[in-house]
């Protein structure tokens, strides 16, 4: 039980650091880094649940693979948008992107 709790606590702290970063940073790439850390925390939890609660059910690992895919998609879309924004405005600072508000 101790190892499960240690892993869950680390997942929670990583998620909290990622959330702080995603909300506090103004640069698009830094915001993406915050999101990556949040997803990293989620993955730690998923692996811990799989290993210590149901290691016979491989679906837990499948779920982690899907989260990794989400991370890759986030990076691809984020860098695509970042490059478009950089070409248009010469910057990826999100404070200068207020015109994107609906």
């Amino acid at each position, binding site marked *: *039980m101790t*190892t*499960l*709790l*240690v*892993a*869950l*606590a*680390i*997942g*929670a*702290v*990583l*998620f*909290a*650091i990622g*959330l*702080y970063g995603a*909300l*506090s*940073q*103004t*640069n*698009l*790439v*830094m915001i993406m*880094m*915050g999101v*990556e*850390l949040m997803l990293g925390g989620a*993955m*730690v939890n998923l*692996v811990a649940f799989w*290993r*210590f*609660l149901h*290691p016979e059910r*491989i*679906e837990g*690992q*499948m779920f982690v*693979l*899907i989260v*990794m*895919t989400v*991370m*890759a*998609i986030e*990076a*691809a*879309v984020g*860098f*695509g*948008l*970042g*490059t478009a924004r*950089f*070409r248009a405005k010469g910057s*990826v*600072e999100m404070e200068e992107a207020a015109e994107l508000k609906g």
Partner: protein
Amino acid sequence: MIAQTVAVALLGAVAVWFGAAVFRTSSMVRSALSLLASMAAIGGMFLAMEAEFLGVLQLMMMATEMAIMAVFMVMYMMDPGGLGQMDMSHQKRLSLASGVLAGLAALAIAFLGGWGPVAATAPDAAAQTRALGIEMMTRSLLVFETAAVTILVAMIASVAVAIARRR
């Protein structure tokens, strides 16, 4: 079991340390390298928790992704080395409060949740990888294919958005 707990705790401390370092430096390149170290430590945690396939995948994938991220940092930033000490943050108090609240909520769930009995052993690496392959190609095939098509669409859309317009 004690060795496993110590390994998970140590690698977790490394992941948290470098995760915090991502937002403590004004150098974008150092941020990318800190995130790489944090993600590598998470990969190490997967290995310590006997998820060998996922651990190796995490190490390989994140090393590549962070290298790409560092290249984009250098491309986008006038000052990727952080020599000008630019401040790239806002609403710090609100962000800190949100992070602390979310962390405390997650910790409360972790420590107060009744998780039931803990499994002592996990299948070996070869059995896990085989089971994962069979799962991917049978019951989760639709999920796997959907993820594959989604990532392909995201790649094409990103290139289409980012490509320079011809005049």
